[in-house]
């Protein structure tokens, strides 16, 4: 990414929050910021970056917002067929104080607004990437492999929902904050996952999403340095993303953790992630992201796959299961038990999951793996084939099919 693009993305949330704080109208302010960013992307490369880039963006954005408010109120006047003037506050010229407002960091408030409970997760993600990440609609659409018109509708609908929910631009009340913080972290986690799961595919844009998610969670951590779960999530992303160079072969096939070339892992990211999670575990309240990061750290710090401390991983899954009710956690727990104790014990952990309707093809894939370890070749082959038929992922199907073929 070019330097000025990164600069623009960093400025985007501050510019937007300055405008929303000053004028209200989240939906129109967001549009105005996008246009200011576009103008900067066109002008800065040739004319140079202004001395005060944020001030420049706020000035251009508020000029555009005033225009939008004028045409909006004109439209409304026509619709209502009333001759009265628009409310005076809608015509405020940018006052002398507006650039000072840009000095505050309202990114967190903005994140809370984008992760409003009235929105579906898909809309929360789109809006966060646009308003806080500064990505264009076209970039977000490309990352999610949908037409730009689809993404544009999703974003404008999200903005409308926020408007209808009557949200004001302030932090949610103390009582709701934990819950909303949970939603914010979950959205950042989903953005990361969307990028990470797609990074083996043909969509190059998706790899940018992991970078963007890491950048955003770093921003949240600067604002909340003492929150253990923010640190835990950042650590989890770093420790997972560190394996990216080794997880696909030259032809795009998936390489499972145990078979990856560990020399390709990103050492710096592992060191940073491990330090973050150890620090968080020692001095903050325990939470699921920290535990997941700790599990990732155990994997990442084993020199060879056979050096993996599976007993410690089993213990961490025990803790994680106390914190969250998620069948995927139980599934991973079964794999760890299979590795630490034995395949029969792992299969016993799987038993109660058979009736869980939240389960997908991965249950069958794990069963196949444990059956293979137990030497029950015929049953393992059948399970691999069933898992291959159930998955909707091409690389996974190829992988599972090849496991069945080898038996």
């Amino acid at each position, binding site marked *: 990414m070019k330097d000025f693009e990164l600069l623009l993305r960093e400025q985007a949330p501050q510019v937007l929050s300055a405008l929303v704080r000053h004028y209200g109208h989240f939906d129109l302010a967001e549009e105005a910021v996008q246009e200011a960013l576009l103008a900067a992307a066109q002008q800065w490369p040739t004319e140079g970056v202004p001395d005060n880039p944020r001030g420049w963006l706020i000035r251009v954005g508020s000029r555009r917002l005033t225009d939008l408010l004028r045409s909006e109120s004109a439209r409304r006047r026509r619709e209502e067929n009333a001759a009265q003037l628009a409310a005076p506050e809608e015509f405020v010229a940018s006052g002398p104080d507006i650039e000072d407002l840009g000095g505050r960091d309202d990114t967190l408030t903005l994140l809370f607004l984008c992760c409003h409970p009235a929105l579906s997760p898909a809309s929360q*993600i789109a809006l966060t990437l646009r308003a806080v990440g500064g990505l264009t609609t076209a970039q977000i659409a490309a990352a999610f*492999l949908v037409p730009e*018109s689809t993404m544009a509708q999703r974003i404008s609908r999200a903005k409308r929902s926020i408007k209808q929910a009557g949200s004001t631009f302030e932090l949610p009340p103390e009582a709701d904050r934990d819950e909303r913080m949970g939603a914010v972290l979950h959205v950042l986690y989903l953005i990361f*996952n969307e990028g990470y799961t797609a990074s083996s595919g043909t969509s190059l844009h998706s790899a940018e999403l992991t970078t963007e998610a890491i950048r955003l969670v770093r921003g949240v951590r600067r604002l909340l340095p003492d929150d253990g779960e923010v640190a835990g999530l950042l650590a989890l992303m770093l420790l997972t993303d560190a394996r990216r160079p080794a997880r696909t072969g030259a032809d795009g096939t998936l390489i499972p953790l145990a078979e990856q070339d560990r020399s390709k892992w990103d050492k710096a990211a592992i060191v940073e992630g491990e330090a973050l999670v150890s620090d968080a575990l020692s001095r903050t309240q325990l939470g699921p992201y920290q535990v997941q990061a700790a599990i990732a750290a155990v994997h990442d710090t084993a020199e060879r796959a056979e050096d993996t401390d599976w007993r410690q991983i089993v213990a961490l899954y025990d803790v994680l299961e106390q914190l969250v009710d998620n069948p995927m956690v139980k599934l991973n727990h079964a794999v760890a038990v299979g590795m630490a104790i034995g395949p029969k014990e792992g299969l016993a952990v799987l038993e109660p999951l058979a009736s869980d309707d939240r389960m997908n093809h991965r249950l069958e894939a794990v069963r196949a793996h444990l059956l293979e370890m137990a030497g029950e070749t015929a049953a393992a082959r059948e399970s691999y084939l069933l898992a291959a038929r159930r998955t909707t992922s091409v690389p996974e199907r190829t992988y599972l099919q090849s496991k069945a073929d080898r038996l």
Partner: protein
Amino acid sequence: MVTVKYMLLIYSNAESWAGLSAEQRDGLTRAHENLTRELTEQGLLVSAAGLADPITTRTVQVRDDTATTTDGPYAEAKEHLAGFYLVECDDIDQAIGYAARMPDAEYVAVEVRPVMDTSGLEM
């Protein structure tokens, strides 16, 4: 994963189509127009189209590097594919909900199939 794309495949057969009254056909068209509008507003619609009558189908087969073309659809069934919607939903239940609102589901059937994607979780 955040969202999955689903193909809603609309099946029809010539007999049941011929048996519809003019009002029923108008109702069908309107229902699809409304559904398309709603899916577009929700930001869920990736693509949608009706397919021309199976009489216009050509089926191509290549055997020993030689392509042969025959008139008519591949499967010799009474039912044929009449159209599709490609939607992006949070889960299959949401996709089934939209399929159930198509009048075609009443007349013949609408099939819901997840689309394969080129990404995969680490295993």
